[in-house]
């Protein structure tokens, strides 16, 4: 038993001989949970995950003997957990609408029985290593949970349970280890959140993560197992981008981590996801989704834990051979929690109050993304997508600038675009991806061989038009040639008909890869045809007056993913009109 020496907000100094750095503790009469983060002479500093109000010097402290860890087993999906993996629905049953302190709740349900089907290799006498698949249970209608041996397990199976219904506390196998001792395996195990879960090796990754958002998939793609950041000022659309990814991404499992953001955004997901269908599997979205929520009014230091708690659970499903997407909204709040603790510890701030280890902590987090060959011989991936909330929208601040160095896809949100209600407000100028080449094969094989060419053409057109707009803003539109005015016109078309995509539009919220390509191609063909006509002498005004552009702009929400034939109908109509114009002007040019 130790005792409290000093209380300074969420940082409590305790005296307890023999306590380890990183160890979990229970503090005071209420049994507040905390974690030792620093040893200083005879004392230990503890960051407490709950409010320390009313705590007094002299109250008792108990070390729990283990670091902050999570329970990994069936029953995670569909749940919402707090930053230290306590199920919020259970907490609500215990303490009502507000969260009281010192509650002890298991992450996984102890009473629920799961139907366990042993894997064929689960047989007496067989060797078992860490991460072996022992059997399966149907966790939700669409997800089969693969029960694995803990990563540090090694030995020989001496006994196992037959197929049947078990709770997670029941023993499903006994393993004799090399040293001769016997380990009991259950359907769950614990893992410390600050240690990445082991895997066999890195795997190559060139399959895109399809999100159904054109500006992301077509222009700034991410791969399964990739790392991306979404920075932007408040209200620019970071949460919407992440929610859209959580809804529509072609992943097996989605984990939504709300870190220091709004409670209502969590409710939005909890209430809307069960009613939505995964476009890839046709099943309810909630069957593959789970959430970690440390909202902005919840204690700050649990915010730091929430990200690690989340990514450890993501790795666990990866190890089962699944493609997992974890979105974290917002990593800036996580960084601020680091800063808060560093400040209270009196650590030297380096930039804007952040401690020197900010960059390495960020890197360590994103390092946990990747596609891997798992210990069980399968392939799985964790894709990490972090929102960044720069103060004042200034991308040169420490969290944004360090993150930018680490991630490979950068979806920069722009305030002017958001102010004009151009959503998603992803800037085509400031965003980048280093995966475009790697995914081009996939697009070529599965959608159209022209994908790369068309993508580059569109990006070039957009950047040319930005240049032209600058000229117009200096000297007026008269300075532009007809061809240049057509470029401006086409760029408006691309922005409105392709880049803008309302998450609230039932038809356009998810856009299939095929539709993405067809839309883009149609707009570019329209542009190309216009260029040809201008070269024949057609006045650009005449092209601008044509009635097609409104129709083209509405196409995304009038034509559904499975009705792409409608594109051709419009394309034909346009072709006929252009043919007439072409004929007219080519004749005029013939010398009489």
């Amino acid at each position, binding site marked *: 038993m130790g005792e409290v020496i000093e209380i300074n907000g969420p940082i409590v100094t305790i005296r307890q001989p023999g306590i380890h750095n990183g160890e979990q503790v229970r503090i005071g009469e209420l049994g507040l949970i905390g974690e030792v983060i620093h040893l200083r002479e005879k004392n230990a500093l503890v960051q407490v995950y709950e409010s320390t109000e*009313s*705590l007094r010097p*002299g109250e008792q402290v108990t070390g729990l003997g283990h670091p902050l860890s999570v329970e990994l087993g069936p029953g995670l999906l569909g749940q919402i957990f707090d930053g230290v993996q306590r199920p*919020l629905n259970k907490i609500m049953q215990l303490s009502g*609408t507000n969260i009281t302190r010192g509650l002890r709740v298991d992450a996984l349900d102890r009473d629920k029985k799961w139907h366990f089907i042993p894997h064929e290799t689960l047989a007496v006498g067989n060797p078992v290593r860490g991460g072996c698949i022992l059997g399966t249970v149907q966790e939700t209608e669409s997800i089969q949970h693969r029960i694995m041996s803990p990563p540090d397990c090694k030995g020989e199976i001496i006994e196992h349970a037959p197929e049947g219904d078990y709770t997670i506390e029941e023993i499903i196998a006994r393993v004799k280890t090399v040293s001769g001792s016997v380990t009991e395996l259950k359907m769950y195990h614990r893992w410390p959140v600050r240690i990445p879960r082991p895997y066999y090796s890195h795997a190559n990754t060139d399959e895109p993560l399809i999100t159904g958002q054109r500006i992301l998939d077509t222009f700034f793609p991410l791969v399964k197992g990739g790392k991306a950041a979404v920075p932007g000022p*408040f209200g620019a659309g970071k949460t919407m981008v992440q929610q859209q990814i959580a809804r529509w991404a072609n992943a097996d499992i989605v984990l939504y981590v709300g870190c220091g953001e*709004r409670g209502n955004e969590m409710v*939005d997901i909890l209430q809307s996801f069960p009613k939505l269908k995964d476009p890839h599997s046709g099943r309810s979205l909630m069957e593959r989704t789970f959430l970690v929520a440390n909202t902005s*009014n919840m204690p700050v230091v649990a915010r730091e834990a929430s990200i690690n708690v989340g990514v450890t659970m993501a790795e666990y499903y990866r190890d089962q051979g699944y493609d997992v997407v974890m979105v974290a909204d917002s990593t800036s709040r996580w960084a601020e929690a680091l800063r808060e603790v560093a400040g209270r510890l009196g650590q030297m701030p380096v930039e804007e109050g952040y401690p020197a280890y900010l960059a390495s902590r960020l890197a360590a987090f994103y390092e946990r993304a990747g596609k891997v060959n798992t210990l069980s011989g399968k392939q799985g991936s964790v894709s990490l997508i972090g929102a960044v909330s720069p103060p004042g929208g200034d991308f040169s601040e420490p969290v944004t600038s360090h993150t930018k160095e680490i991630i490979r896809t950068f979806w920069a949100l722009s305030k002017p675009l958001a102010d*004009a209600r151009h959503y998603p407000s992803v800037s085509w100028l400031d965003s980048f991806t280093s995966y475009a080449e790697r995914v081009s094969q996939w697009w070529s094989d599965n959608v159209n061989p022209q994908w790369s060419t068309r993508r580059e053409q569109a990006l070039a057109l957009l950047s040319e038009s930005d240049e032209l707009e600058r000229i117009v803003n200096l000297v007026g539109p008269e300075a532009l040639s007809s061809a240049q005015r057509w470029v401006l016109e086409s760029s408006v078309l691309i922005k409105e008909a392709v880049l803008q995509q309302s998450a609230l539009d039932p038809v356009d919220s998810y856009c299939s890869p095929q539709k993405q390509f067809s839309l883009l191609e149609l707009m570019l063909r329209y542009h190309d045809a216009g260029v040809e006509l201008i070269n024949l002498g057609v006045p650009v005004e005449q092209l601008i007056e044509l009635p097609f552009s409104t129709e083209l702009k509405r196409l995304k929400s009038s034509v559904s993913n499975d009705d792409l034939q409608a594109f051709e109908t419009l394309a034909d109509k346009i072709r006929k009109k252009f043919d007439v114009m072409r004929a007219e002007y080519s004749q005029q040019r013939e010398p009489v």
Partner: protein
Amino acid sequence: MSDLEHRKVSSIHGALMFLKGVKNVAYGDRVVIRNKQGGRRNGQVIKSSAEVVLVQVFEGTDNLDLENTWVRFLDEPFELSLSPDMLGRNFNGIGEPRDGRPPIISSIQRNVNGSPVNPAARSYPREFIQTGISTIDGLNSLVRGQKLPIFSGSGLPHNKLVAQIVRQAKLTGDSTNFVIVFAAIGVSHSDARFFEQEFESSGVLRNVVMFMNLANDPPMERLILPRTALTAAEYLAFEQDHHVLVVITDMTNYAEALREIATEKGDVPSRKGYPGYLYSDLAEIYERAGRLHDHHGSITMIPVLSMPSDDITHPIPDLTGYITEGQIVLSRELHSKSVYPPVNVPPSLSRLMKDGIGKDDTREDHPRVASQLYAAYSRAMDSRNLASIIGAEELSGRDRQYLEFARRFESDFVNQGSNEDRSIIETLDLAWELLSLLPPAALSRVSDEDLQKYHNWDGS
């Protein structure tokens, strides 16, 4: 409660007082301080160890000395006594009457810090509140349980706007009135009087609870005032089933008090000297708005803040915007053009609008009309910009249409009387009147059906 008074103050600086040799004091507890003249002050424990206790004194430490200061630890956190009798009353930041009437006596007492709402216990706000103001109802709709701040600046008519919202806010087809919790933080006497008279003349005074800390009242009390006010609001909403509208003005004064105490404590500053925890601290306040499962009442919150030097990237508006569910931004430029309310449309936003409007709530075209107005106004700003470069005469026909649209948008749609209570249908019809200045080809955000039904293009 302990009657023991300690005379162990070892040092005093700013609003902080250090005591040595007082044992086992609970963190966050309430403290009462008395000096030789018997003057009483309030404080709170903000750091506690066996050797030293640090107390923050709300009234400041002027005229206190080390010798003749007695400190009593009440052995309880800051609590507020709650009863329906609070309605019609006026209190200071720690809930003591300012109106000369007796204190509230009740067996119901709540810690003013509250405890965090479980996100799983929230219910998503989606009931449209009609404020009668076109820029809010039409473009940035408010819903019951939303926190929607007003970003203003000194000299801008935010008080008038808030008073108009308070007067006019109602649910369509629902006659229950809002109960109002009014929290004034560091405001001037004349502003305070303006609101009191407003409440009185509109006859709502008995439905208002006021918490006031005026410009010349102790600044540190501002740190606790919004918490006290919200404790009252939570009681009225979730225990008394009222729909509560909380107006807090001016959050900038709150944040400045926080910076002052943080500096005295030696906390590591982040931007502009504000402590790194300003975000979390503000969130503790703003996140107390909302709706809960199985509860009838709601807390809708309209905080007002003035942006220092009209700078929206200043930490106070910036961090507020990162927490609240949108913002209504006022513009000095429109104000100087005599547009009232001078709502700066592009940076204004309501995030909860999407679920509170449309076919079943307002009208089916509402979401598309709002988006179209934004797009058109933004395009019109480009035309205005161009006109300033090359002159309006040189503009193309289309650009001139946009200029006219922008002019009418500001003078007819944004601008309205401070007693003009427009229904949402009037607002939407007005929107179409303006969109009819633009040809159908320019309106790609609305549907063909919308155009047929509402667009009145004369083809010129």
